[in-house]
């Protein structure tokens, strides 16, 4: 097991290097750079070439590509992500608060998704092929179909029209004012969580159907065990694993992938930062963000695999 863990951890390295190369090259292919974005953004099109060259030199953009890449990678090895090319402050500082927001939102959305998926999936499995099953299915497919940003707009709209109330639009960290914080984040969490519950619901249903046909369930029934007890103690334990897996895997993407929802709820999360960074051609910032999201994805993947082996004694890795 220890060997397997080590192997998996080492296998992450080439993938991360691949991610680094890919985003590094992609950004260099994007027309323009941070210097151009700044001066042209300020309207002074006639900025002297010399001045721009000096700026580029300061940022190290005049170096050959491989040199820039090696410098960046060497920084990462020392856990130094460098300075934002746009603001000049350390990347870690730029990301910190936004990461807290995105992490909290991702956690809340995953919780919503889990709380919806598990009971709905069980319900659909127990009432297979009845109208309940169909209703659950339509509900979850509808969740997949509705863009969560539109759901967000509808939420804000209906709160405005029916309650004449708007959720707070300025982010307050949880530790400053938990009430204010939750009043703001619960809505995007609901909108996003509903969408991500759909896959989980389907998974829960099919896993439950499969488990309910197992011999040990029949045995439990035959010995006259209470149905609720069978579900809670025997069936759920075995059926829940794939559902938790799929929701945790989505979690990693929720961290950086909620670009549009953040926009609707005016949340300054990682997604928003990404869009800003692209518009400003802030290479260092985007690179750090992408590495962060990719590592989160890989780590979650890894943890899920290990958790599997730990929870399910039938699975053993070598």
């Amino acid at each position, binding site marked *: 097991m220890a060997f397997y863990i080590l192997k998996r951890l080492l296998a992450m390295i*080439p*993938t*991360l290097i*691949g*991610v680094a190369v*890919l*985003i590094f090259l*992609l*950004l260099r*292919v*994007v*027309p323009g750079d941070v210097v151009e974005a700044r001066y042209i953004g300020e309207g002074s099109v006639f900025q002297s070439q010399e001045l721009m060259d000096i700026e580029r030199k300061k940022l190290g953009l005049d170096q050959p590509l491989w040199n820039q890449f090696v410098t960046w990678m060497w920084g990462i090895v020392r856990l130094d992500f460098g300075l934002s090319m746009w603001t000049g402050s350390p990347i870690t500082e730029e990301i910190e608060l936004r990461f807290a927001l995105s992490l909290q939102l991702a956690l809340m959305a995953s919780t919503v998704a889990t709380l919806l998926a598990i009971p709905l999936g069980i319900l659909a499995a127990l009432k*297979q092929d009845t109208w309940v099953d*169909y209703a659950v*299915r*339509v509900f979850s*497919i*509808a969740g*997949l*179909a*509705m*863009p969560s*940003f*539109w759901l967000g*707009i*509808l939420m*804000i*709209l209906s709160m*405005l*029209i029916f309650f004449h109330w708007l959720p707070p639009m300025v982010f307050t960290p949880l530790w400053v004012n938990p009430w204010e914080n939750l009043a703001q984040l619960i809505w995007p969490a609901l909108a996003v969580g509903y969408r991500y519950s759909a896959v989980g619901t389907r998974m829960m*249903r*099919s896993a439950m*159907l*499969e488990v309910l046909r197992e011999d040990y369930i029949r045995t439990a029934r035959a010995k006259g065990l209470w149905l609720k007890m069978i579900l809670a103690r025997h069936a759920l334990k075995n059926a829940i694993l794939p559902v938790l897996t799929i929701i945790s895997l989505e979690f990693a*993407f929720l961290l*950086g*992938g909620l*670009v*549009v929802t953040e*926009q*609707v709820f005016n949340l300054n999360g990682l*997604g928003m930062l*990404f*869009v800003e960074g*692209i518009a400003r051609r802030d290479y260092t910032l985007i690179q750090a963000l*992408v590495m962060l*999201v*990719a590592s989160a*994805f*890989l780590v979650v993947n890894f943890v899920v695999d290990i958790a599997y082996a730990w929870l399910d004694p039938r699975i053993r890795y070598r």
Partner: protein
Amino acid sequence: MAVTPQTVDELTRAEKARSRWIAAVLDFARQRPLGAIGGVIILVMVVMAATADFVAPIDPLATDYGAMLSAPGAEHWLGTDAYGRDVLSRMIYGSRTALMVGLGASLIGSVFGAVIGVASAYFGGRVDLVVQRIMDVFFAFPVIILALAVVAILGTGVGNVILAIATPMVPRCARVVRSSALAVREMPYIDAARAAGFGHRRIILRHMLPNVMAPLLIMATAFLGEAILLEASLSFLGLGVTEPTAAWGLMLRGAAVEFAESAPWMAVFPGLAISLAVFGFNLLGDSLRDALDPKLRIQ
């Protein structure tokens, strides 16, 4: 042309083939009512997109500053937007954009994905390993981030958006296709083809690809809905289809949110169109998966 017994024979055969096809569709509809509903939604959308020039009551680009933000009524059934453009007409034309982007991205994504997936499975060994590692790299990116990066490189507009959406789909499709292709590779007819001295290209394109069509088709249908959603998201961010083209995501942008309280029709109807379209594709895709792929069938 003289009517020979042969042509009559051919005609009846064609007729039979057609009636068999219709019977298959009817059968599908009877067994999978949800899938049939999805099919009908898509059919309506396709017809709307094809006949937009006749169906849409008003030119979708015509601005009417006298009727800005007017509520749904006799003249503008679903109201107008901040430029006085007819919401209904823009929605009808928007179906054209959505279908174009959806079909385009899904087609490009699944073709490239299928070829990469099949080739990776066919060659196996080191090639497979390298291709899979590269796919792993793409998998570590959230879909929308990859799409945004491609838009940043290529710029906005329908064609570029299609490519941007197809990009993250390629590795996902390649993975699914590869796993089915691995099974196909072991089939005796592939050995036979190899023994007959056919080249790699011929074996991949003529022998393997047709045999992974079922999962590919399922994948492509599922992609369609996702592509429409993604296009809406990109357009909503202002990084997708650009004004004045009628696109659903674009209609939700800017003024639709600003004036949401006084002119909710601008925000409600286009979103409804997106949801309905994606809903249709998802329903159809789901039922198609159940019907076509016994391996994936759930109970």
